[in-house]
């Protein structure tokens, strides 16, 4: 099973060496700046967005994250990104149309058949082909192109009239989501979970005034992250053990599947509870007291690089705010 959350890539770059608090605060500042850019087609906003995208690419290069990893962190969003783009194309009616005459699109027997054939072919062959994401984009494009191309045996016809604005706004949202994901995954790529945990604890520490037990939440968060792989491993074992007793998800009916989930859930619950009990005993045996003041092996200290990084991100956010107010 593949999980992309908290996947740390140890390349020991300058970004890795930054204090986790710096990285979290900078991420928040940069995201605020990014979302302060209004969605519009004015060239200033487009330049601002381009700058943010550029910054995130530069940061990834500084962090020496392999390009493959970056792209794979974007992959789960391919569908969402495409969907947003298409919705924009259909809903935004402002601005100049791209085509002189509106395109008439046909949902006809021929085009529907062609689209179904295309999707079936795509699903059959996608496992064996490289550049799957690119193929997906081509598939989406072809689905629309076929509706234009094959008007035979019409069922339903609609007019498709994308404007320049809609394309720009679609791309705008596309890039904004992409930048968000790039920046956020950069944090998890370059920061170990223990460091992240400390960062969150530190940033939330003002809440202690309101008697929120921040350190308990931070500990819970780190334990959850630590136990995800363990529980996945246990789950796989239980699935196999129950499969050996004839429970097979692949070859049974939907009605049976619901009953079968119980055969997985109960053992997994019991294992989790047992593990939790063992863990709490082990923690207490090593002197963990809830709410007691704890020291750390690693002392975190802001260095020159941290101040520089914070200064930069504050600067970027301030510029964006000023531009937003003035323009």
């Amino acid at each position: 099973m593949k999980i992309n959350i908290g996947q740390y890539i140890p390349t020991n770059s300058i970004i890795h060496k930054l204090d986790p608090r710096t990285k979290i605060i900078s991420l928040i500042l940069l995201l605020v700046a990014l979302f302060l850019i209004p969605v519009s087609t004015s060239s200033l906003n487009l330049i601002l967005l381009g700058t943010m995208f550029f910054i995130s690419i530069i940061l990834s290069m500084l962090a020496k994250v392999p390009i493959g990893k970056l792209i794979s962190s974007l992959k789960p969003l391919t569908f969402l990104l495409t969907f947003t783009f298409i919705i924009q194309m259909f809903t935004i009616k402002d601005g100049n149309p791209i085509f002189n005459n509106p395109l008439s699109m046909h949902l006809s027997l021929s085009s529907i058949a062609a689209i179904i054939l295309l999707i079936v072919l795509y699903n059959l062959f996608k496992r064996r082909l490289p550049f799957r994401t690119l193929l997906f984009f081509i598939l989406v494009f072809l689905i629309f192109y076929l509706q234009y191309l094959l008007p035979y045996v019409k069922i339903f016809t609609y007019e498709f009239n994308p404007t320049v604005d809609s394309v720009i706004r679609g791309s705008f949202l596309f890039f904004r989501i992409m930048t968000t994901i790039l920046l956020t995954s950069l944090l998890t790529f370059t920061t170990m979970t223990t460091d992240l945990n400390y960062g969150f604890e530190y940033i939330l520490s003002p809440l202690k005034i309101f008697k929120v037990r921040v350190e308990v939440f931070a500990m819970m968060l780190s334990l959850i992250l630590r136990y995800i792989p363990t529980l996945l491993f246990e789950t796989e074992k239980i699935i196999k053990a129950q499969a050996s007793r004839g429970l097979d998800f692949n070859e049974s009916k939907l009605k049976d599947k619901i009953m079968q989930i119980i055969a997985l859930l109960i053992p997994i619950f019991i294992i989790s509870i047992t593990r939790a009990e063992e863990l709490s005993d082990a923690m207490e045996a090593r002197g963990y007291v809830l709410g007691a003041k704890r020291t750390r092996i690693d002392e975190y200290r802001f260095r020159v690089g941290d101040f520089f990084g914070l200064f930069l991100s504050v600067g970027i956010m301030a510029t964006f705010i000023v531009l937003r107010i003035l323009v």
Partner: protein
Amino acid sequence: MGIKFKNVNHEYQSFSSNEEAIKDINLNVNGTGEFIAILGHTGAGKSTLVQHMNALLYPTSGVVNVFGQDLPPRKKDKVNHLRQKVGLVFQFPEYQLFENTIIEDIAFGPKNFKSTKDKALDNAKKAASAVGIDESMYEQSPFRISGGQMRRVAVAGILAMDPSILVLDEPTRGLDPKGRDEVMDIFKTIHETENKTIVLITHDMDIVSRYAKRVVVLKDGEIVFDGLKEDLFTHPDFNTFNLEVPTTFKLLKALEEKLGIPFKETYTREELTNYLKGVKL
């Protein structure tokens, strides 16, 4: 009929590289009358090998034939029925219990294989008595009994499916010596009375010497020894297998050194005592 491995490889995919867990395995397991111990150090591929036997894993290359069905299966071939013929008991099987009562849990397997409720219960009761679960415990919750008893209930859950081949992944792990002997005696009885094939992964050389007939040794995913137990301990390459000798061997070797009693290969406690009775100092 039985299980035949032909040039089987299995690779686990990981992020950077593919790891070969088992390499070029050729192995025949008869459908009846065998008692095979699979040995090898941690990470040698023992668990991967046995999971091929009931179609939980498919070979990445090569073919496993389980009771006439080739694996990996062609499309539309069903494999679930193979798991009734080859019953696999995992390590720490007590974690797989989930039903309200012990007897229902044991009957879960046969019910999945389309036997009627009465037949499933019959089978469950037979399996329960085979592992020494008393009738008075049938209606208890499987979570309120001791660890050793949970293990028996879990084993009974597999036995109730009436498999031809019983595959066990370290069935005695985490049990005390008495529990170990009791569990092993259950398998021995099943093997002797019903002539079922038993395949068993273990690290315990005393279990090997006492119960197994045939031994398969894995090293780094490859089979380095496949033959009778009697041939294993005298094999010229025995030292390269990273295995221990059984207690009976250790004892007799020590006696030979200290008291000059000549060494003889004995495999069980009874053989050892019989031999020692006949020795004249």
